[in-house]
C-alpha cells in the first residue's frame, strides 16, 4: 500500500492505495465519498465519471496511484458553496432528470464537461456527448432537457408531454 494524495473538490485528501486500487474505489472506500457510483465496472455505463485535472474520465478504469497528485472533482463538488444544488443538479431536479438516481452522478459530471466545452449545445450535441452514460431507467428525454435547461436554453416543461 502507498499513500496517494489528490486535491478532491478543492481539498487535499490522502488515503492508501494498492497498485490495483481504482480511482473510484479510492474515492468511495478510501475517502468514504460514495457519491460516485460503480454501475457496470466495465467502463461502459458512466456512473463513475469524475473530472481528473479538468477532464471527464471513468474512474472505474483509472488507477488511483497513476493519478496521484491530480485535481479531482466529484459529484460532491457540484453543489454551491452554501450547500444548495448547483445549476446542473437543480436542472436535473426541475426537469425530472433522475428516476432511480443511480446514473445521476455520472450524468451530471458528463453534462458539466460538455457545458464547459460547449456552453450552448444543441439537443443532438447533448445526446451525442452522453453516449457513454447509460440510464437503465431509460429516462433520457428528461436528462437531455435538464442539460439543455442548465445551459440556459428554453426547454418545454415536463408537464406538457
Amino acid at each position: 500500500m502507498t499513500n496517494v494524495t489528490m486535491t478532491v473538490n478543492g481539498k487535499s485528501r490522502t488515503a492508501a492505495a494498492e497498485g490495483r486500487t481504482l480511482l473510484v474505489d479510492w474515492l468511495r472506500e478510501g475517502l468514504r465519498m460514495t457519491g460516485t457510483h460503480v454501475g457496470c465496472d466495465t467502463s461502459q455505463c458512466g456512473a463513475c465519471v469524475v473530472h481528473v485535472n479538468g477532464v471527464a474520465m471513468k474512474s472505474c478504469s483509472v488507477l488511483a496511484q497513476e493519478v496521484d497528485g491530480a485535481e479531482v472533482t466529484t459529484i460532491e463538488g457540484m453543489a454551491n458553496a452554501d450547500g444548495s444544488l448547483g445549476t446542473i443538479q437543480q436542472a436535473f431536479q426541475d426537469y425530472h432528470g433522475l428516476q432511480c438516481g443511480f446514473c445521476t452522478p455520472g450524468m451530471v459530471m458528463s453534462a458539466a464537461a460538455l457545458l464547459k466545452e460547449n456552453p450552448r449545445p444543441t439537443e443532438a450535441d447533448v445526446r451525442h456527448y452522453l453516449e457513454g452514460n447509460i440510464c437503465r431507467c431509460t429516462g433520457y428525454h428528461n436528462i437531455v432537457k435538464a442539460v439543455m435547461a442548465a445551459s440556459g436554453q428554453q426547454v418545454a416543461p415536463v408537464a406538457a408531454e
Partner: protein
Amino acid sequence: MHSFELVKPATIQDAVAALKSDEAQALGGGQTLLPTMKARLAQAEQLVALSGVAEMHGICVDDDGRICIGGATTHATVAREASGYPALASLAGRIGDPAVRNRGTIGGSLANNDPSACYPAGVLASNATVVTNAREIDADDFFQGMFETALDEGEIITEVKFPVPEKAAYEKFLQPASRFPLVAVFVAKFSDGVRVAVTGASGDGVFRWSEAEAALSANFSPDAVKGLGDLDADDMISDLHGDGAYRAHLVSVMTARAVKAAV
C-alpha cells in the same frame, strides 16, 4: 483484479528498462487492459504506466509533412489537435465516448490491435509508420492478425507518423452497444494511388481491400466500388450482431460512403 505493482516511469528509457522484466506489461490509457484485468482475462505482476512519459505526448508535423503523434497521446487530443489530417481527427473523435477518449491512447489501441478497433484502419490506410523504442515499422508489416502485432515483448510504440493523403474519410457502422465498429472503412487517396483499410469485418483484424484499391485508383468514385461485388462471406466475422454476408456487404457500402465523403 489480481494484485500488481504499478510503476510510473517518466522517460522512454526508464519505461523500456521496467518492461525488461518477464512479469511486466505496458499500460496505455487502460480503457481495454483494466476492464480485461478486472474480468481476470489478463493479469500481470507489474504494470508500467506510460501516461507519465512526457516525450510520448503530443502532435507535431515533421519535415516531410507527416503528422506525428506521440504514442501516449489520447484520442481526445488527436480529435482536437490533428487539424492537419481532418479524417484522422474525425476517426479519433468517434472512438468510444468522451470519457474514454480522454483516457485511451493511440499507442495502446495499436498495440492491442483489436479486430474491431478504429485506429488500425486509419494507420493501415494512411500507410503510416509505427515508431517504437527500437525501430520503425511500416503499417503493412505491423498488423499480424487478431490482437497480434509485430511488436516484440517489452517494445513500446513511442510515435506514429502519418503521411497526409490528398483526400480521405473514415466511415464507421456503429455497433451501438460496444461503440466499436461493426464494420468501418478508411479510404485514403494519395497521388500514387488509393489505399482502403477495413476493420471490424475480419477475424484476422484490419486488412486492405486490394480490389477496391485498384478500382478506386483508376476511378475515385462510389460507382467504382459498386461494380466489385462483395467480399467472400466466409472470410468475415459471423456473430450475433451480423453474419458474414451482412458484414461483407457492409464493407462495400462503407467503402462507397467513405469515397463519397472524401470526394
